[in-house]
């Protein structure tokens, strides 16, 4: 299932990017046609497109993404391997922070509906959704880096301090979504019959929330976390651009604009692969958590 989707993705990207006008070597500099022909021959761009595709797929089978047409002497595999660790570190901590804070806010809001925490969480939620990252992140740079000088403005040379701002910025919109999802799901679950049964049996309120309602409330959150984590870990384009991080996020835009065919393919495959893997993991966790699915009901 996942493999078929990935295959279709490869096929589609391969042909669509070649349909787009311009090529990897049609820059502003005027180069004589012979040289271009030579370069294209070196990258096998002169072959019939079906041959190119066969060659590419054969490379993929051997886990070879081919050479980048933009960064000479670099393989796409190398570029991805160089950037991915940074994106994964940022993405991992951001999602961890977002899940913990988001779920906590959501539950607090659901337990004391229309109380102070609920309103505070609501404000955080709406702000996280309504104030775009590309406004929030620069403002954080101005206040926490330039004015207060707590953290560096960008880059990766300050140890943990250079990770804080990007992680928080990346986590905020996710906190907003997760807290809203948790709150809605928790409110709904607390109305369910099995919760009433548990209460009627005399189980204490804390245990009802943590042991009984938690499962139901977390299901939609986990469904959201799958694709969101895949997207975050494979690089947030904005965050990596704004904070000048060496992850793979910036390649998303550059590769497509430079018509770096192999790099676009590599990024699409990485992203699609992560997405599929995380969706499978999500489904497994949900199946394991949800008794209705677990017992084949």
């Amino acid at each position, binding site marked *: 299932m996942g493999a*078929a*989707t*990935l295959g*279709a*993705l490869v096929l*589609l*990207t391969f042909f*669509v*990017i070649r*349909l*787009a*006008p*311009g090529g990897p070597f049609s820059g502003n500099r005027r180069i004589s046609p012979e040289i271009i022909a030579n370069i294209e021959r070196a990258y096998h761009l002169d072959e019939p497109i079906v041959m190119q595709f066969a060659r590419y797929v054969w490379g993929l089978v051997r886990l070879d993404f081919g050479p980048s047409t933009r960064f000479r002497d670099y393989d796409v595999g190398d570029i991805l391997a160089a950037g991915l660790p940074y994106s994964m570190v940022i993405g991992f901590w951001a999602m961890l922070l977002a899940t913990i804070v988001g779920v906590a806010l959501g539950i607090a809001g659901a337990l004391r509906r229309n109380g102070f925490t609920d309103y505070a969480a609501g404000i955080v939620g*709406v702000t996280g*959704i*309504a*104030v*775009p990252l*590309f*406004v929030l992140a*620069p*403002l954080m*740079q*101005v206040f926490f880096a*330039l004015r207060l000088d707590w953290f560096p403005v960008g880059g990766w040379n300050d140890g943990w301090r250079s990770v804080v701002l990007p992680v928080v910025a990346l986590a905020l919109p996710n906190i907003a979504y997760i807290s809203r999802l948790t709150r*809605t799901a928790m*409110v*709904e679950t607390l109305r369910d019959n099995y919760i009433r049964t548990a209460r009627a049996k005399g189980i204490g309120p804390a245990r009802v929330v943590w042991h009984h309602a938690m499962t139901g409330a977390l299901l939609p959150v986990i469904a959201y976390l799958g*694709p969101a984590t895949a997207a975050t870990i*494979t690089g947030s*384009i*904005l965050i990596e*651009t*704004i904070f000048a991080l060496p992850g793979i996020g910036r390649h*998303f*835009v550059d*590769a*497509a*604009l430079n018509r770096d065919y192999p790099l*676009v393919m590599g*990024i*699409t495959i990485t*992203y*699609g692969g992560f*997405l*599929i893997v995380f969706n499978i993991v999500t489904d497994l966790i949900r199946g394991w958590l949800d008794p209705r699915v677990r017992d084949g009901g």
Partner: protein
Amino acid sequence: MAADIRDSAAEVPPDRPESTLRLQFRRFRQNRLAMAGVVVLALIVLACFLGPYAFPFTGQDADFDAIGQGIDLFSAHPFGTDDFGRDLLVRVLEGGQVSLTIGFVGALTAGVIGVLYGAVAGYAGGRTDAWMMRAVEVLYGFPYVILVILLSLLLGGGNLALFAAIVFTLWLTPAVIVRALAQSLSRREFVEAARAGGMTATQIVLTHIVPNTMPVVIVYGSLLVPEVILAESFLSFLGIGIKEPQASWGNLIQIGTSAMSTDLRLLMLPATLLALVLFCLNFIADGLRDAFDPNDR
């Protein structure tokens, strides 16, 4: 006999239950936050589309006597000018025209495409449905930015290509939602009756399936508007959306962030308006959701 009928007609209970739509509308109007959203949004729309006429210059006219002027509410340029001497307020208002138009028209287009696609897939069922949803899944697998860039390259660049690309990436979620609804609707008795009565599949989809998905579509569609606006400004911020000298909130914010360490004014005006619009749209969406589905709260 005739008198009987007249009598029973007169006996229609005076407190006839309100129509659902009326009730929903009334519930929406009682939601203060949502109504405030409507009012503020209307004011911003009016300001963006009428405001620029109040000034003797357009956002592309440079005033060489007032380059980089700061905020001075009682001068010709109340919020100052940018590095080229162009009036900031007028540029932000003109940018709002672009962003708002793309937002509303884009959400409408994406919504219509998604509803039709989802309704057809859900009603048809079986193999058609499986293939149609497979296609959606593949498109979901694409990294969003790469898809947008490829599409706008394919369509020859320009604002229309950008618009088409945004719509193309945003019709997927409505399609999935409507498909699930259509699937359960197609098993209902009234659809069965319509089929037995000899209606064609096209007629059933258009007159029975689509109208019945509307409440959910309206709620979701109202969230689509901020999404489109955000997508446009996100892409313009990255430099692949609306291009200078034409203003949009995205590229104005981008200019603002590059000057933010010295002058926050260029960032704050467009960012505040964008955030305000997104706030309003989210409040309106919340209000609609509460009005259509009171159990959710």
